[in-house]
């Protein structure tokens, strides 16, 4: 499945079904992030229900602390 993630087309395994699983795939499931799917910001609670589909445009912003 091809997804446009942060402006770049990436191929992710077909086993990734939801936004929650996508975050797990990128090892971001333990991190504090904001996720936008096709220009809609997702509530944290709905990430495990939101399905990802081929061609989706997804923005993931991770809050980091360094400086």
């Amino acid at each position, binding site marked *: 499945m091809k997804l446009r*993630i*942060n*402006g*770049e087309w990436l191929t992710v395994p077909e086993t990734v079904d939801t936004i929650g699983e996508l975050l797990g795939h990128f090892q971001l499931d*333990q*991190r*504090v992030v*904001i996720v*936008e799917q096709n220009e809609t*910001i997702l509530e*944290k609670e709905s990430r495990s229900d939101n399905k990802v589909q081929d061609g989706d445009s997804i*923005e*993931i*912003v*991770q*809050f*980091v*602390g*360094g*400086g």
Partner: protein
Amino acid sequence: MNERYSRQTLFSPIGEAGQKKIREKHVLLLGAGALGTGNAEALVRAGIGRLTVIDRDYVEWSNLQRQQLYSERDAEDRLPKAVAAKQRLLEVNSDVKVDAYVMDATPSEMERLLDGVDLMIDATDNFDARMMMNDLSQKYQIPWIYGACVSSYGICYTILPGETPCLNCLLDQVPRGGMTCDTAGIISPAVQMVVAHQTVEAMKILVEDWAAVSRKLVSFDLWQNQHTSINVSRMKNESCPSCGENPSYPFLKYSHQMKTAVLCGRDSVQIRPPASREWSLEEVARTLAQQEVKVELNPYLVSFTTENRRMVLFKDGRALIHGTQDETEAKTLYHRYFG
């Protein structure tokens, strides 16, 4: 107008009028590490009136790769960063008034320094300080600019009190235990990119070109060639304890501050972070293991030794830093390795 600023005043969104405004403005910079030195140099060169710079740390060799105001001499002398920064900044532009404070600023100390401040810039390395700045910004109606970076990644967001969502609106929890510059490393282009975002936002605010201020949360990974920006305006939360209708400014309260205690006779400092939660010790150990330190993990704690300091982190976020009785040093190490 001074020849010094001629190329900046030729830039029409600033112009002579904007330069005059910049000259009248007072910026407070919390932190004088990588982001702090980059922001400070840019703003001092741009000709602000006054800069307050606050930092609790001293210059080390590992800073020189990216912290642009410091020299080998500063590292040899272990000069406090605020002091070394001030010296260099006055060489760059002696017209700017620079106030330097070597301290680990608490909310009450910050409140005393905020009088007349037009803008705060985040150059800290931890979310305790950022949440404090976020509440101070709301309480005193002073804009602030969040910025952070780690490895080749960076993030920036401008908070305008009364208009944009605040940092607390955007976070479902205060981030802890993630990567830090001391666990995942950092390359200077990532620093410079965040500094560029922060200083251009600062310039817009200082010349009062409010319409030009970015209302977006921007982030990038320079190594992965990724850039993104999210319009977060809909995330403003009317019941936010920091910026909502009945704000309580939780992060200015004593209970929300990191507590430290020297353990008598043990040459150790105990650190208790605000708002305890379950930490993923496996995650912490995995991040630490990427460095050349031996990490020990059991179901209750993770421990490792670096720079002659042994650090032990418990599941509730509490830590013991062995080999020091200096509470500020212990806090610095905590933020460095555990975020």
